Structures are given as C-alpha cells and as structure tokens.
C-alpha cells in the first residue's frame, strides 16, 4: 500500500472527525435504544402483568417484584435484536440533525473532506451495533426464549413449555407421525403415538401404534407396539434428536449450535431450508445494520440543511422504515422457501451498501469536476 493511501486510510479510520462523530453516534444510538427499550418493556408488562404473575412454569421465581424484574430482563434480551437497528437509524439521524443545525456539516463539507470519509463513522457504528445484534440473535434471544418457556411466561414448543395437550401431525421422510410430544428429564417422550409409513409412491405401507415411544439409535423405539402388517420387525424412519428437541420452536429462536446442525440437513431433519435461511439471517445481521447506518448517514448528508424542517426528518425516518420493511419481508420469504437465502437475506443489504458507496463516489467526482472547472476559470482569469 502506498504511503499517501495508508495515511488517508488511517485518517479516515482514526481521524478527529471519525472519532468525534462515532462517539456522537454511539451516544445517540444508546440513548434512543434506551428510550425504545423502556417503551417496549412498559407496553409489554402493561399488557402481560396478569400472565406473568400467574405463570406456573417449573423454573419461575415466586410471584412478586423479582419475577417481574426477571421477566423484563428476559423480554429485553428477546427484543434487543429488533431494537438495535431501529435505534441505530434514529440515533444517526438525531446526531446528523445536530451536526447540520450547528453548521458543523457545512464546515466539514467546505474543508473539501470526501463524503466517503464522512461515512466511515456510520460504517463503524453499523458494524459495531450489527455485531451486538448478531450476539443478541445468536445467544441472548435463544437463552431468553428457553428461560421464558421454562418459567411459563410464553409458550415455545413442547420441550420448553410442557407436553402437547392434543396430538400433533408431523410429516417425516416418507412417513407421517401422530403423537403427543413431551420431554421428561430432557429426553423426548411421545405418547399415544401412531406412525404411518409410506412407500416410494407415498401410498400407505405400514402402521405402528403404541402408548409410548422414545428416541433410540436415530429413530423411534415403540413400547409394545401394534403393527400392520405384523411382521414382528420394528419400523422407524430416521428422526434427528436435535430436530425433535426443537420441534414447535421457531427457527429464529433455536440456539446457535442446534441451528448450525439443523441447517446442514440430513436424515431425520425436516424443513431444513427454514433452518438454513434462519442461520443465514443471523449471519447477515451485521451487514444489515451496517447497511441501515450507511443509508441513513448518506441520506442525512444529502437531505439535511442547517435550517431543516421536520418534514425532512420524517422523510428520513420513512426511508429507514421502508428499508426495514423490505429487509424483513424478504427475510420472511427466504425462511418460507419462496426466495433463496442469498437473495432474500444478503442481496438488499449488500446492494444498499454498494449503492451508498457508489452514490458518494459519484458525488465526490461531481464536486471534483466543478472544482476543476473553477480552477481552470480562475487560471484563465489570472492569465488575462
């Protein structure tokens, strides 16, 4: 790397403006995050206080302030991944409004500073908050869901929230299972269980029925089963134990290690495309937040003026919300298998980042052309 380029890069990453604006962004993002989290938790507890106090999960502490505090902590961990990108967008706009109103942005622009360099704080904050969001998606939310289920605050599948009251139908590889699924000491226990296996043309091949069945050797072990045809041989399609322990739990809430296993697919794992999309969705979190931060910072640099109106701020908020809506919609479509994860999860954030960089390069080139024209005109005036 050439010395001027290295110096420019060092300045862009650690220069005074970068440090000052990054600190301002982080301060505002933190404040906005606090306000949003407080509002969300206040609305949550107001609507669910009766349910929280009446929760009868085995792990729930005694009803009282401690239980409410624990519930709020768990809900904070659950909601953090949704709050962080929103706080980033609003925090950056708030900081940029202050910079515009105090004429700091005008002064910076008049120093000839590249708009691309002015985007570095947004990129840094986006990646930092994105990393926090990834940690929240990866670790905090699954832990929160487990705890909420075990304490009876919310229902999240038979492992966390108690056995099925009604039998459920589950499609397996060339088989259909009808059973009440529950867990005893962490071990899956299927009750009133009937397994219908199907041949290669998906016609009924056999039936096996029992009062109880457990997981064994990658399949199901039926206790004293009734069978048709009664060949005396046990029938069991492959059932992945990690898939079964997460049955009824939304892929977004599955722990990271389980999700990685399920996203690989394989024998006994159903709907692996949903797990694959959910895993990709988590991995794309830092990129998504960075894209949101860059988009808001770029729009602020273009739209905000020292005597800006509330209308321009509303427009910026609308753009941020529009981005959030598009990203969420595509992510849901990817999880449902309508779109490939690459398109549904990665394409829009990557496109927005590339678009922001290209737009600012174009602006910089345009300013350079204007300056060059002025220099030329001044030089010719000088010659005359």
């Amino acid at each position: 790397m050439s010395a001027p380029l290295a110096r420019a890069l060092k300045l862009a990453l650690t220069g005074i403006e970068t440090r000052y604006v990054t600190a301002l962004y982080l301060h505002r993002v933190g404040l906005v995050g606090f306000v949003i989290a407080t509002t969300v938790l206040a609305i949550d507890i107001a609507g669910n206080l009766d349910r929280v106090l009446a929760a009868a999960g085995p792990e729930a502490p005694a009803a009282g302030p401690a239980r409410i505090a624990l519930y709020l902590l768990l809900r904070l961990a659950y909601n953090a991944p949704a709050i962080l990108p929103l706080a980033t967008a609003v925090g950056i706009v708030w900081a940029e409004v202050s910079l515009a109103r105090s004429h700091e942005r005008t002064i910076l622009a008049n120093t000839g500073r590249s708009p691309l360099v002015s985007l570095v704080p947004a990129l840094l904050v986006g990646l930092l908050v994105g990393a926090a969001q990834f940690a929240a998606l990866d670790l905090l939310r699954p832990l929160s869901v487990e705890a909420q289920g075990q304490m009876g605050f919310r229902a999240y599948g038979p492992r966390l929230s108690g056995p099925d009251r009604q039998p459920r139908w589950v499609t397996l590889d060339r088989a259909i299972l009808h059973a009440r699924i529950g867990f005893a000491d962490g071990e899956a226990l299927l009750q009133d269980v009937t397994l219908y296996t199907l041949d290669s043309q998906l016609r009924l091949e056999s039936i096996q029925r029992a009062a109880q069945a457990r997981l064994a050797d990658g399949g199901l072990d039926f206790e004293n089963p009734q069978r048709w045809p009664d060949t005396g041989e046990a029938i069991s399609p492959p059932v992945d134990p990690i898939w079964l322990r997460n049955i009824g739990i939304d892929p977004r809430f599955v722990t990271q290690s389980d999700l990685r296993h399920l996203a690989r697919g394989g024998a006994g794992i159903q709907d692996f495309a949903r797990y694959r999309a959910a895993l990709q969705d988590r991995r794309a979190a830092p990129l998504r937040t960075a894209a949101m931060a860059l988009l808001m910072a770029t729009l602020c640099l273009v739209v905000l003026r020292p005597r800006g109106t509330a209308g321009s701020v509303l427009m910026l908020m609308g753009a941020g919300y529009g981005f959030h809506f598009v990203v969420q919609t595509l992510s849901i479509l990817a999880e449902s298998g309508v779109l490939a994860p690459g398109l549904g999860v990665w394409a829009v954030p990557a496109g927005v980042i590339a678009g922001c960089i290209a737009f600012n390069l174009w602006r910089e080139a345009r300013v350079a052309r204007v300056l060059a024209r002025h220099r030329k005109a001044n030089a010719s005036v000088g010659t005359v």
Partner: protein
Amino acid sequence: MLSPPPLPRPYRRRLYRDMTGFLLALILGIEAIYLSDKVLTDLLFAMLDHGLGGSFLLRGIVLASPEILLLGLPLALVVTVFMVLLQRREAGDLLALAQAGLSPGTLARLGLMLGGLGFVVSLGIGGVLAPLANHELGRLRHEARFDVLESGQPGNRSVVRIEGATLVFHRRSEDEAAARLFLHVPDAAGETRIITARDSALHFESPGADGALFLSGAHISGFRSDTAARLERTLDANAAELVYRAPGLAIPAFAARGSRISALTLPELMTFPHPDDPAARKAVLRMVLSAVLALVAPPLALLAMGLTRGGLSLLAGPLAIGAILAGGFLVAPLAGALAGMSLRSGLFLAMAAGTVAALVLGAMIVGRGDSLFTPARFRL
C-alpha cells in the same frame, strides 16, 4: 351575544386545503406503519402458511386498513391542527389577521367545528366501515385456511382438520412441486379409513352441501383394532380416479355477521335485542368514545399551540399527542366500565363528558388570548 368574526374566506380556503393535505399525509403515514406491521406479523405469514398469492395479501391490507383509524384519526387531527396553525402563527399570519379582527373565539370555534367533523367521520368509520371490514377480513382468513382443500396446493401449513377428518399434504422431497394427500378419517364404529392420493381437489355441487373430494392415483385402506389389540385391515383398494364423499366433508361456514358483535354496525347494535347484551353495549360505547376522542383532538391541539411558550414550548405538542394516545388506550376499559349501566345512561355520560371537555378546551383557548397569535420564534 356577539359571535366571533369568521376567518376571511380566501384565507380559510387555503387553511382548509393545507390542513386536508397534512391530515391525509399523516393518515397515510399512520396506515403505512400499521399495515406494514400487520403484513410482517400476520398477513404475510397467513399467505405463506396457506400457499396463497398476492391477491390475498392485497385484499387483507385493504380490509385491515379501517381498524387503526379509530385511534389514527384523532391522532392525525391533533398533529395536523397543532402543526398547521403553529406554522401559520410563526409565519405571522395569525398576528396580521388579529389586526383585522381575528379573535381567540374564532380559533376556538374553528377547533370545535373541526372536532365536530372529526366526531362524525370517526363515528362513520368506527360504527360502519370498521365492523364491516373486520367481518370481511375474518371471512377472508377463514376461506384462506381451507383454500388448500380446493386447490390441493398447500403452503407452509400442511395439515387441515375438518369434522374429525385430517388431511395432511406432503411431498417426497422439498424440491417436489406437487403435494400428495394423506387423508385420515376415523368413524364412530372404531374403524379408521386412510386414503392416500397423488392429486386432490375438493368440489362443491351446491352451496352449503357436503363436498366431493376428487382424487387421482388413490389408495384406500380401512383398519380396525380387534380384541387382541391387533390392527386388522378391513379394506384395501386402488383407484386411478376416485370421487370421495363423506358426511362433514365441507368447509365449515364462517360465522354469520349477525352472530358476531365485532362485525355489527352501530345502527345494528342500537336495535333490539342488542342493547340488553353487555358486550354489545361495550362495542357501542367504544365506537362513541373513539369518536369523542376525535371531537376533543382539534381544540386540544389549538390549546397546545397557544401553550408553546417558555418552558412548555417544546412540550405542549407532544403532551397533547400523548394525551390523545393515552385516551386511545383508555377507550376500551372506559367502555367496559360504562357498559355496566344501561345503554342510554352510558351514551349520555360519554357524550356529556366529551361535550363538556370540548367546551372547556374551547374556553381555555379563548383564555390564551394573544399567545395564540404572537409568534414565539419557534423553529419548525
């Protein structure tokens, strides 16, 4: 008694035009936020679960749009009146008009007139449009649940239960486009019939009648548990094409509009025998209290505009918006409390409280005097 002089007609026309534009933009914004949330948390999942197309989503969005207006309209009214008149005051318009005879009473009257208009519109939306749309949305979702029976193409949700029969749609692999059918029909005699088929479609020959399931590549088995607890096959047949009829093979009818309180309009709820039903009384009072919120919103906004001075300059507007929001959250519990008395008494109390609140706000606006007209160098 002298009535306050009206605003000059050309100015009034421009003011109303600006207010209408601002109000429509705000309502559009509120709808956009509400409907996008509704799409992301509800309608999009329903579309994907039931394997439906964009027309379901579009119809769902249209039908879901009136319900937020019960709170959205008062909210939009309070912001519109506050922002538009604050802009006019800061531009010096109101001060200039005051020299030509504009009095605080004129502004109070404007607030009350806009409130009255808001009351009527809110009652129209909450009392007629919202219940009808709510009913149609319910019907749309109900039909969506069973659409797979007629199309044979499931979405993410592959199990449908009707009248004890269970239909499971499944594929050999995730790449396979067409779904196969697994039909499980237990009968009262303890026998179970299991039908598998390559293709299926449910047809109805006449409305309200049981349907006929048209099956291709069907295989039918019947089973019975005998006394030795063995599974005994009682039926085994294949059919290239099969029309399967069974009692109860019909899409359950969606509850008639008259049987659901939430789907009844205000005039319907006011007629016998509904006023005797506490749930119906609560629904009526919710509609009326929401309209009362729209009645007090404009005078409240005008008062807030008059209070944007000194320590309250940044707080008055948000406080007025917060008051309307809080009022919106209180509508349901208040309606519940008033539903304990007779409909006539409850309505009288709600209307009287709303009218008194609007008049008191009007008097307070008049009491603000010059602060309604003099600019406060407030940056907008």
